[in-house]
C-alpha cells in the first residue's frame, strides 16, 4: 500500500475544559477522497485547523507528505502543498476573481519579491489562472471583484485558487454549504473528476455529496472517531446510524 499523504497520529485538543479533538488518528491515501462527517460541533473544523496549522494540537502529530509538520506554521504547510477551502468563504474581496487565482498561482511560481515588473504581464501565471477559473465555470466572471460574486461563485473561486496551486492535498470544509442545487451538482462533478489524481479531506453535511464522492468516510462524534470505513460500511454501521445519520434525519 502507498504511503499516506496525510496521517494524523493520536491528535488531541481541548478548548479550556472542553475536549474538541480526542485521540484522532486517520489517514488520507494518494488519490483518495476521505470524507469526515459528524454533527454540528463535532470538532470537524477544529480538526482541519490543526491539519492546516491554524491551531496547535495539545498532543499527537500531523504528518504530511512524509514529514512531521506539527510544528510548522500555516504558510509553511501550504508551501509543502496543502491547500484549503474555508467553511466561510475566504477570498481577497477587493481583487477580481482573476487576480485572486493569479495570487494563488504566484505563490507556487517563484519569488514574490519582484518589485517593478507588472504582475499582470506574467502570461504564464495569468493563463494558468484563467484556465483554473474556466475549470470551475467562472471564466465569464474573471474581471468581477470577488466581493460582488454570489455565495456559490465564491465557493467555486476558492476551489479554483486551490486547484491552480496543484496541491498535494486539499482540505475542503463544507464546500457545498449554502450553494444552490445546480451549483452543488456542478461542484460535485468537478471534484469527482479529480478523484484518483488529487487527494482530498472532505468535510460535508450534504450526504448525497459525501456518498457520491468519498472513497472512505470517518465519522466524528464529540471530537472522537466513532467509525471509519468504506461508504457501504458506514451506511450500515448501527453506531453511526444512531449517533449521526439518524439524528441527521430529523434535524
Amino acid at each position, binding site marked *: 500500500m502507498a504511503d499516506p499523504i496525510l496521517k494524523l497520529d493520536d491528535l488531541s485538543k481541548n478548548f479550556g475544559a472542553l475536549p474538541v479533538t480526542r485521540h484522532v488518528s486517520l489517514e488520507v491515501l494518494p488519490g483518495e477522497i476521505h470524507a469526515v462527517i459528524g454533527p454540528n460541533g463535532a470538532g470537524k473544523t477544529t480538526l482541519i485547523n490543526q491539519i492546516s496549522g491554524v491551531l496547535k494540537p495539545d498532543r499527537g502529530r500531523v504528518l504530511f507528505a512524509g514529514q512531521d509538520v506539527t510544528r510548522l506554521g500555516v504558510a509553511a504547510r501550504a508551501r509543502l502543498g496543502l491547500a484549503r477551502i474555508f467553511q466561510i468563504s475566504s477570498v481577497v474581496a477587493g*481583487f477580481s476573481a482573476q487576480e485572486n487565482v493569479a495570487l494563488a498561482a504566484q505563490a507556487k511560481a517563484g519569488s514574490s519579491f519582484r*518589485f517593478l515588473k*507588472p504582475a499582470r504581464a506574467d502570461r504564464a501565471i495569468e493563463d494558468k489562472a484563467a484556465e483554473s477559473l474556466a475549470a470551475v465555470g467562472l471564466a465569464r466572471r474573471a474581471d468581477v471583484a470577488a466581493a460582488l460574486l*454570489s455565495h456559490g461563485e465564491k465557493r467555486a473561486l476558492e476551489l479554483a485558487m486551490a486547484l491552480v496551486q496543484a496541491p498535494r492535498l486539499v482540505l475542503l470544509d463544507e464546500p457545498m454549504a449554502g450553494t444552490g442545487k445546480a451549483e452543488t451538482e456542478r461542484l460535485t462533478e468537478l471534484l469527482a473528476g479529480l478523484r484518483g489524481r488529487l487527494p482530498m479531506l472532505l468535510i460535508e453535511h450534504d450526504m448525497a455529496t459525501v456518498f457520491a464522492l468519498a472513497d472512505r468516510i470517518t465519522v466524528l462524534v464529540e471530537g472522537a472517531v466513532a467509525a471509519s470505513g468504506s461508504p457501504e460500511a458506514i451506511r450500515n454501521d448501527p453506531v453511526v446510524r444512531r449517533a449521526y445519520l439518524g439524528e441527521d434525519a430529523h434535524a
Partner: protein
Amino acid sequence: MATAPAANDNARPSRLGPFLRSPAFGLVLVALLAAAPAAAVLLGQPFWLTMATRVAIFALAALSLSFILGQGGLVSFGHAAPFGIGAYAVLILADLGFTDALVAFPVAFLAGALFSGVTGTVALRTRGVYFIMITLALAQMAFFTFTSLSAYGGDDGMTLWARSTVAGQKWLKNDLTFAYLAIGLLALFLVLGNRVLASRFGRVFRGLKENESRLAALGYDAYPVRLVAYALAGGVAAVAGALLANQTEFVSPAYMAWQRSGDLIVMVVLGGLGPLHGAIVGAAVVLVVEETLSHLTEHWKIIFGPLLILIVLLRGGLIARILGGRRG
C-alpha cells in the same frame, strides 16, 4: 452563471470614480501642482511658490505613508520619525562636509529605510492598536534621541549652512528650481509606488491587508513582505525630510514630533486611504487650510479638528457616493 447577480457589477453610478482612482489622475494632479510654481513667478506671488513646494514635500511624505497605510493597512503613528531622520541626514552630512544632494539624498533614503526596517522588526510583530502604539513609542524614542544631540542644536535644532549642491552646482538656491526638484521627486515616487503596487510584491502586500489568513493558507508569510514595504516607505519619507531640511534650511526634532505623524495620517485619510495620489490632495488641503485658518486665529486646530471629522463623515456618505463603489 445562473445565480449571478448580474446587476451588481453594472450598478456603478459614475465613470468619474474609476478615473479619479486611476494612476492617470495622479499624473493630472502632479501636472496641476507643477503649474503652480510657474504661475506664482509669473504673477509675482512668491508665497505660492513656497506653498507649492511645501505641498509637494508633504505629499511625498504622505504618499509614503499611504503606501503602507492605505494599501497595506499598517497604521503607523510614527511616520514622522523617518521623515525627520532624512532631514537630520542632510544636516549631519553637511556638517561632515558632504553637501551634495547626490550623496545626501540617497543616504537619507538609506537612513530612513534602515530606521524603519529595524523598528519594523519589533512593530510588525504586533497588530491593530498595539501597532499604532508601538510605532508611536519608537518614533518618540527617535524624537528624544535627537533632542539630546547637543552638537546639532538639541531641542532647538540647527540652521543649515546652505542648500545641498547638485554635482557641485548651487542650482537649488533658486526657489523655482527647488520647487521643481520637489515636484519631480514626488512624480518619480508616485510612478514608482504605483509600479510596485502592481508588481508581484504589491499584489501580495495589498492582499495581506484584506485577508491575511487566506494568504497564509496560500503559502505567503506576511512578516517579510510587510517589513520590506515598511522599510521602503521609511526611505521615501526620509527623502521628503531631506527636501524639507533644504527648503527651510533648518532642521529640528520638531520634524519628528508625534503631531507631525498625526498630520501625515490626516493627509492620508483626507486623501481617501485609497490610491497613492490621494496623498497629494490630502497634503494640499491640510497645508492650505492650516495656512488660511492660522491667519484667522492661533487656535486654528480647534476649527480644523471638527472640520476634519465632518469631511471624514461626508466621505462615508456624500463623497463616497460621488466616487461610486468601494474601491478600484
